[in-house]
C-alpha cells in the first residue's frame, strides 16, 4: 500500500501568460515517517508526437517527511520555448507532475494545458513563428488525471517486501529501483487510475 497519498493539487496562477512559472500547491499525506526524500518533477510535454520534446521543468526533493499531512508549493520556470516545435506551440498539450520515492515513480498527475492567444486577431491569424509573449497558458485544473503505480516502499534490501507490490495479475516483480526518467521498468503496471469511472 502506498505510503504517500496525494490529497490535492491546486494549480496556482492559472491561467497565466506563457512565460510565467508553473505553480502547483501539492497536499499529500504520509502514513509513516519516510527515511528518504520524495522527488517531485514537473514535465512539460512539448509535443504530443514524441517524448523527445518533453522537458523536465524542474525537480525538487521534498523532505523530511514525517507521518502526517503536508503541503508545499512546487514552482518551476516556464518551458524553454526553443525546445518546443513551432507547430505545437499553440493548442493543447500536457503538463505532468510525477513523484518518485527511492527512484521509483508512484504517482503521475497529468493536466491538459491549452495555449492560446488572447488577442482575437492573433487567434484568427496566428503567426507562423509563435509569439510566446502573447500566448496564454490555461491549465485544465479541474480535470487532473491521476495514475498510481505500485512501488517498493521499503529499502531494496528489505525482505519479501516487494511481493506485495506485485500486481496480482502479473508475475513480474518490481525491480528494487528503476531509473528515474522516461524508460519505464518492465513489470510496473499502473494501478488505480482514478479516473476510470
Amino acid at each position, binding site marked *: 500500500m502506498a505510503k504517500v497519498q496525494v490529497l490535492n493539487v491546486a494549480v496556482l496562477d492559472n491561467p497565466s501568460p506563457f512565460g510565467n512559472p508553473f505553480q502547483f500547491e501539492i497536499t499529500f499525506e504520509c502514513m509513516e515517517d519516510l527515511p528518504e526524500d520524495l522527488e517531485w518533477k514537473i514535465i512539460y510535454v512539448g509535443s*504530443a508526437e514524441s*517524448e523527445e520534446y518533453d522537458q523536465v521543468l524542474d525537480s*525538487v526533493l521534498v523532505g523530511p517527511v514525517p507521518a*502526517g499531512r503536508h503541503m508545499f508549493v512546487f514552482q518551476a520556470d516556464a518551458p524553454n520555448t526553443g525546445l518546443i516545435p513551432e507547430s505545437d506551440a499553440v493548442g493543447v498539450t500536457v503538463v505532468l507532475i510525477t513523484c518518485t520515492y527511492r527512484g521509483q515513480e508512484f504517482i503521475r498527475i497529468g493536466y491538459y494545458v491549452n495555449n492560446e492567444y488572447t488577442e482575437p486577431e492573433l487567434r484568427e491569424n496566428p503567426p507562423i513563428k509563435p509569439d510566446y509573449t502573447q500566448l496564454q497558458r490555461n491549465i485544465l485544473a479541474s480535470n487532473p488525471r491521476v495514475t498510481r503505480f505500485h512501488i517498493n516502499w521499503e529499502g531494496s534490501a528489505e525482505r519479501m517486501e516487494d511481493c506485495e507490490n506485485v500486481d496480482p495479475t502479473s508475475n513480474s516483480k518490481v525491480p528494487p529501483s528503476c531509473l528515474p526518467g522516461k524508460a519505464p521498468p518492465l513489470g510496473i503496471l499502473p494501478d488505480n487510475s482514478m479516473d476510470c469511472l
Partner: protein
Amino acid sequence: MFCSTGKPIFSVDIHPDGTKFATGGQGEDSGKVMIWNMAPVLREDDEKNENIPKMLCQMDNHLACVNCVRWSNNGLYLASGGDDKLVMVWKRAAFIGPSTVFGSSSKLANVEQWRCVTILRNHTGDVMDVAWSPHDVWLASCSVDNTIVIWNARKFPEMVTWLRGHTGLVKGLTWDPVGKYIASQADDHSLRVWRTVDWQMEANITKPFSECGGTTHVLRLSWSPDGQYLVSAHAMNNSGPTAQIVERDGWKTNMDFVGHRKAVTVVKFNPKIFKKKQKNGSAPKPGCPYCCCAVGSKDRSLSVWLTSLKRPLVVIHDLFDKSIMDISWTLTGLGMLVCSMDGTVAYLDFSLDELGDPLNEEEKNSIHQNIYGKSLAITSTEAQLSTTIIENPEMLKYQQERQNSAQANLGPGSAGPESSAPKLNSVMNGESLEDIRKNLLKKQVETRTADGRRRITPLCIAQLDTGDFSPALFNSAPILPSGSSMSNQLTPQLSSDSSPGQASSLGLRPSHDPMLTSPPPNSTAKGLKTSLLLTSASKIEPMKALDSRFTERSKATPGVTKRGQTVSKLGFSVPSSRPKDSISALKDIKTKDDTSSDSEDKMASINKNLSFSKRKPETLMDGGEVVEKRKKGRPRKDKMAAPIAQPFTQPSRVAAPPAPPAALKLPTPSIKKAFSLQVSMEPAVFLEVENEVSLVAGSKLSQLRCSRDGRDWNTLLPSSVVTAAGSSSSLCLHRFDVVAVACQDRMLSVFSSCGRRLLPAIQLPTPVSALHCTAHFVMALTAGATLSVWDVQKQKALVKNESLLTILSGADTTVSQSLLTQQGVPVIGLSNGKSYCFSSSLETWTLIADKGDSLVQCADFRSCLPTQDALVSPGPLAVMQGRNLNAGRLASRLSSTPHHLQQSMTMAFLENQLASALTLQSAQEYRYWLLIYARFLVNEGSEYRLRELCKELLGPVHKSAATAWEPTTLGLRKRELLREVLPVIVENLRFQRLFTEYQDQLELLRNK
C-alpha cells in the same frame, strides 16, 4: 462506484449501530472496501432523496481482492483482509469532512473518512476471513497459508499467537460468543476448535467433511449466540451438501441443515436469541428460546432456519446470478444483508411475527450466565447506557475524545454521539489554513543539497499520531483545485466545476441521518442492484493522443492522431460525467481493464439499470420443501469440566553456596582469591577484588579496584573481601553512587563513586549473606537472618538489624532473592514464593507478592489493562511477582466461576497490588495499578469504592489545619492522579454525575 463495476463482492458486514455497512471485494485493479449508508437501503424515501448519500467512503488501499470485512464489536474499527496477504484495520478519522479522492473524475466524495490505522502483515497467502473476539480483545485472521493468526486488538500490530494445524487453506473463522473458543474451517476437510486459554486445539472434526472438495471460495462458519451450536459451512452427508451442526457439548455432529443443491459457503447466526411470540388471547406458553440461522450457498439460494422448526423458515432461490459469499444480520436481528459474487447485495427484513420476540440483552446474559457462569454483562450494560443523555459538556468531550482515540477499548456497544461537523475555519497557531496557503510559497523552507538540488521542507499541516488528525489543526474540507477560497458549504464546493446535475444527484450532507431503529415490518427482499449512470457531456477527441502520457511511462506512443482543427472546433471543453437519476445501488459499468484514461471509453460506458423486484418471502416459502431437517436438540448445559488449575511450582533460586553453618540461618558467600563484578553496563562500572594481595609488616591486605568509565580508583582493606556491591545510576542528575564491600571480619565499608570512604567501618553482627547498593542506599543481609539498610547520604539507618525470623517460618524456607529498591526499600523473596518488604514507616514486614496466591491466578482484569503502555512498568513489584502475571490468563479457564466471585477476587487482587506498590514506594507501579483498579471499578460499576478512591485523591477542598491529608503519594500528586482517573470514569456513562462532581471540584481547586 464499486457495486457499479459488477465486480464480485466477497464480504458484507453491517455496523453494530446499524447505520452503515461495509462491503469488500474486487475493485478495478485493486481490492476495494466500501462503506455504505444503510438508510437508503432501509427506506425508500431515503433512497430517493438525493441529499442522502449512499456511499460513505471507499478505500482501494488493498492491492488485491478483499475477501472479508468485519466491524469491531464496539463499532470503532473495521478490519479487512485480502488477497494481498494483508489485514488492514480502519478507523474513522473524525473532524475531517467529506472529500473527493483526488483525481477521481466521478467527484464522488467520501462522506466519511476512514483511514488505515494498522496494517497487519504476517500471512504468506491470501487472507480469507477475519473475526473480532467478543469484547474486541483479539482479532483473528485466517489464510490460505494454512494458519490462523491471533492479533492483540489492543496493541496492533502485536501478534498473540499462530494457530497451526490445518493442512489446507483456512477459509472461515468464528469466535465462541463467550470467548472460550475460536473455530476454523479449512479445505483440509476439517473444522477445528481452539481454546483461547492456551491456544491449543480443543477438537478436530473431520467426519462430516471427508467427502468435501475444495470448491468454495470461502467457508464462513458461525457460532450460535447462546454458544451451544457451531454450524459449519460446506459439509457432506450422503453425497448431499449440508451445513453441519456441531454441538458444544462433546463436539457431537449428529445434526445438519440439508437441502442446498450446492456447497454451503456461508452460515450466519442471528445475533439475537428469540422466543415464541405470544399470540393475543392464547394462553402464554413458556416457550423455549431458540436461535435463527441464515445459510447461503453456491446454488445462489439462501435459507433461514429457526432452531425451533424442523423446516426452514424461508428459502429464497435465484436471489443472485452467482454464489452467495457473505451474510450479515443487523444487531436488531430483523434485517439481513447478503452479498454475492455477482457484485450485488440484497437486503432482507423480517417481522417479529416471523422470527419471534428477541430476548433483550439481560435475558440473553442470564442464559449465558446460566450456561457458563460467566456473564457478558459488562458490555451489554454499557450498550444500554449508550442511550443515556450526556449531561455535561466535559463528559461529551471526553466521550468524543475516547471514540477518537485509536486505542480506545471497551467502548459502548453502539456508537455514541456523532462527531461534530467539521470545523471549517479551524486555525493553526492562530493562522487559518487560508492564510498559510497565501504565503506558502514565500514561507516554505527551500534549501540546496550538496549537489545543488532544490530541497523543499513541506509544511506539516496535520500530525498523524494515533491515526487521527487533530481537530484543531486541519481544515477538513478539501481545497479547491482552483485554489480559490473554501466556502462553508460542501455542496457548492462539489458542484463548483462540474455539471449541476451531478451536484444535485450526489449532493452531500456532512452527516447522515441518525437512524437505528428496526426496519419497517413488511417483509420485502430488496435488491441493491442499481447502477450509476454516467453519460458523457462531451468528448475531447484530440486529447486522445495525449492521454497515454498520463498513464504510461513508456516510449510507445503509437497511433498518434493529429490534433489541430478539431481542437479549435471543440474549444476547451471539460469532460464531465453526469449521473442520471440513480436508485439506491448500482450495477454494471464495465470499464475497460486497461488503465489508459481514455475519456471516451470512460464516458461512454452506459449501463443497464437493474430495477429490482420486490418479492415477498411468503411467495418463496414453497421453496422450503426441498429442505429437510432431521432432528433438533435443545440447548444443553455445558458439561465441560473446568480444567484444574495447575499447581504452582517455584524454582528455588538459592544462589549462594550450600550447607551454611547450622547456627546461621542464611548462606554466606565463600571467600575467593579474586573476583570481579560488573555494576552496570551504561556507564560501564566494574569492581575488582583481589584478596591477600600484599603483605605489609606481616598483615595481609586486600585490594578493591573500581573502574568507572575508564577512570580507576583502588583502595586497600585489612581483611579479605567476601562480597561487594555498587550502585550506578546512569541518568540521575544528582548522582550519588556508592560502592560497598563486606569483609571476612564482618566489617562493612562504604565508598563513594570516586573511592572516598563515606562511612566508618560498620561492624555486622554475623557474616554477610547478601549485600546490595541502590542509589545511596546500602542493604546488608546477614547470615544471622537480620537485615539492615542505611541511607548513606543522610548517614542514617533506615532498617536496623531487623530479624527475618518472622517471615522465615517454614522449616526449609530460605531466601531466594533479595533486592533494594531505588527508594531504599528492602525486598526479600522466599523460596515458598512469597515476597516481603520491610516497611520502615509501619516498622513491620509486609507481604507484597505471593506466587501461590489463588487471587493472582483468578483475577481477571484483562479488560482493564491500559492499551498503550500495556507493559507492566518495570519495578520491584513486577520483579518480585514475575512476568508470568498474565492478566488472568488462568481466569478464563475458570469460566465456570460465577461472575460475582471472580469480580471479588479481581478486586481483592488489584487492591493488594495497590497496597504493595505503595509500601514498596514504587510510584510508577502504583500509578499503573491505580489506573487499572479505577478502570475495573468503572467496568464493574462499583460506585462506592470509586467514590472513595476519588475522594481520597481529591482531598479536602478547603484547607484546614486539622486534616491529615497528604497532597502527594510516593511523589505523585494525588490530584494529578485524579485527573488521570477521570477519563477512565467517563467511559461508563452511569458515572457521569460522579465525573461531573469531581471534575468541577478539580476545576475549582485549579482556579484557587
